[in-house]
C-alpha cells in the first residue's frame, strides 16, 4: 500500500520535472528563435537597404545572408519531395545550386526599395522541441497596413536556421514546391526537365544582373 503510494508519488515527481524541463526548453527555444530573427532581420535591413551599393555587391551580400541563416539544403530537398531520391547525386548538387541562385536573384531587389522601419516581432510559439514560429509584422511607409510575416525557425544545439517564410498565410516553401512539382510533372517526371528550366531562368536573371 505504502509502496504503491510511494511509486505513484515518485512517478508524479518525475513527470513534473520532465514536464517542467519541457516548458523551460520551449521557452528558451522561443526566446532563442526570437532573438535569432531579430538579429537576422536587422542585419538584412542594414546590409541590403544601404544606398549606393552596386547590384552585384548586393547580390553577394544577400547570398551570404541566405546561406548563413536559411536551411538551404533542407528546404531544397523538401521542395523536390518525392522526386529528391529519384535524382542522381550530380543532379541533386546542381539543383541545390540553381535553387539558391533562383532565390538570391529573385528576392534581392525587394530589399533595395524598402523604406519602412523594419520588423516588429509580436509573439513566438514553439511547434515542438526543435521548431518554433516567430510571428512578425513588416511595417510599410505611410498609412498602409503592415504585412504579416511568420518565420519557421529550427534549432540544433546553439544554431538556428530559417525553414520557411510565411507571408500573409502564404508559405514560400509550399509555393515553390507546387511550382517546381508542376514543372517536373509537365516534363514527364524528369528532374532533368526541371534543371533545364532552372538553368534558363537563372541565366536570364544573371544576364539582367550583369546589364545593370
Amino acid at each position, binding site marked *: 500500500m505504502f509502496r504503491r503510494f510511494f511509486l505513484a508519488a515518485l512517478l508524479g515527481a518525475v513527470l513534473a520535472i520532465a514536464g517542467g524541463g519541457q516548458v523551460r526548453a520551449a521557452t528558451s527555444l522561443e526566446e532563442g528563435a526570437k532573438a535569432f530573427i531579430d538579429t537576422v532581420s536587422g542585419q538584412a535591413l542594414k546590409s541590403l537597404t544601404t544606398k549606393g551599393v552596386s547590384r552585384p555587391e548586393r547580390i553577394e551580400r544577400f547570398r551570404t545572408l541566405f546561406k548563413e541563416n536559411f*536551411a*538551404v*539544403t*533542407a*528546404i531544397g*530537398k*523538401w*521542395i523536390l*519531395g*518525392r522526386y*529528391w*531520391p529519384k535524382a542522381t547525386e550530380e543532379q541533386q548538387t546542381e539543383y541545390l545550386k540553381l535553387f539558391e541562385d*533562383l532565390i538570391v536573384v*529573385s528576392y534581392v531587389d*525587394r530589399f533595395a*526599395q*524598402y523604406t*519602412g522601419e523594419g520588423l516588429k516581432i509580436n509573439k513566438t510559439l514553439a*511547434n*515542438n*522541441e*526543435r*521548431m518554433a*514560429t516567430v*510571428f512578425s509584422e*513588416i511595417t*510599410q511607409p505611410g*498609412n*498602409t*497596413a503592415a*504585412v*504579416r510575416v*511568420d518565420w*519557421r525557425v*529550427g534549432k*540544433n544545439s546553439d*544554431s538556428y*536556421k530559417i*525553414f*520557411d517564410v*510565411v*507571408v*500573409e*498565410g*502564404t*508559405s514560400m*516553401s*509550399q*509555393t515553390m*514546391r*507546387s*511550382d517546381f*512539382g*508542376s*514543372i517536373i*510533372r*509537365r516534363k514527364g*517526371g524528369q528532374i532533368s526537365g526541371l534543371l533545364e528550366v*532552372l538553368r534558363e*531562368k537563372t541565366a536570364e536573371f544573371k544576364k539582367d544582373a550583369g546589364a545593370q
Partner: protein
Amino acid sequence: MKYNMVWTISYLRSLTLPSRAAARFFEFPRFAGLLLAGLLMAGCAATPDPKDPGSVADFEQINDPIEPFNRGIFKVNQALDKTIIKPIALVYRDYTPDAFQNAVHNMLNNLRSPIILANDLMQGKLRRAWDTLARFLINSTMGFGGLGDPAYQLGYTFHNEDFGQTLAVWGLPNGPYIILPVLGPSNPRDTVGLVVDALIDPLNIWLSNTNREEFIFARSGVQGIDERARSIDTLDELEKSSLDFYAAVRSLYGQRRSDEISDGQPGANYPMPGISDNFPGENAPNQDAASRAP
C-alpha cells in the same frame, strides 16, 4: 508595396462584377458551353498513373482536374491583362496623385462594409462585426462619406469577408480549382460566394431598382483597377521568379483563401520543410509524410 504579397491573389478575386454583370456573365448558354468544353477537355487531362501512389496523391492535393482547360482560360486572362487591364492600372498608379488613389481605395472599402458586416454576422463573429460597423459609421461621417479612413487611427482596422469564406466556415468544401474568365482563380464555392455577395449588396440592389446599373459597372471597374494597381509589383515579381506562373498562382490562391477563412490564425502544422541533413547526424523530427520517399 514591394513587400506586399497580400495582393497577389486578392486582386484576382476582387474584380467582382456585381449582380447584373455577374448574371449577364454567367448567361446560361455561354456558361454552359464553357463548362461543357471544360468537361470535355478534362477527359483528356493528364490523369495520374493509378499504380503510382505518389502521383495519385499529388493529383488529389493539387485539386485541379480540368487543368488543361484552366490553363487555356488563364492564358486568355493574361492576354487581356497585358493589353488592357494592366496598362490602365499602370497609368492610374503612376499618373494620379497618391491621395486620390487612397481616397478611392477607402471609398471602395467603405462601400463594401454592408457585405463584410453581413458575412461577419453569418459566421457568428460578433467582435469583427462590431469592428466593421464601427468603421462604417466612423468613416462615413468623420471620413467624409468614406473618402478617409479615420477608423484606422482609432484602432478599427480593415478586414475583408465574403460569402465564399462564410460557406467555408459553414463547412462547405471548396471543390475543384477553376479559373474564371476575367475574374481569375476560384472554385465552385468561391464562385457561388461572388455571385451571392453581388446579389445581396444593398447598394447594388438600390442602384438596380432605380435603373442606375451603369454605376454598378463603374464601381466594379474602379474596384478592378484599384486592386490591379496595388498588385502590379507583386505579380510582376511572382511571374519573374516562378518557373510555372500558373502553378504558383494556383498554390497561392489556395493558401491565401485558407488564411482568409481562418482570419489569419496560423494553421495547425501545415506542411513545411523539417530539420534534416542541414543539421548533420540528426533525424527530422517533423518532416511530413509527403516529403519522404514513397
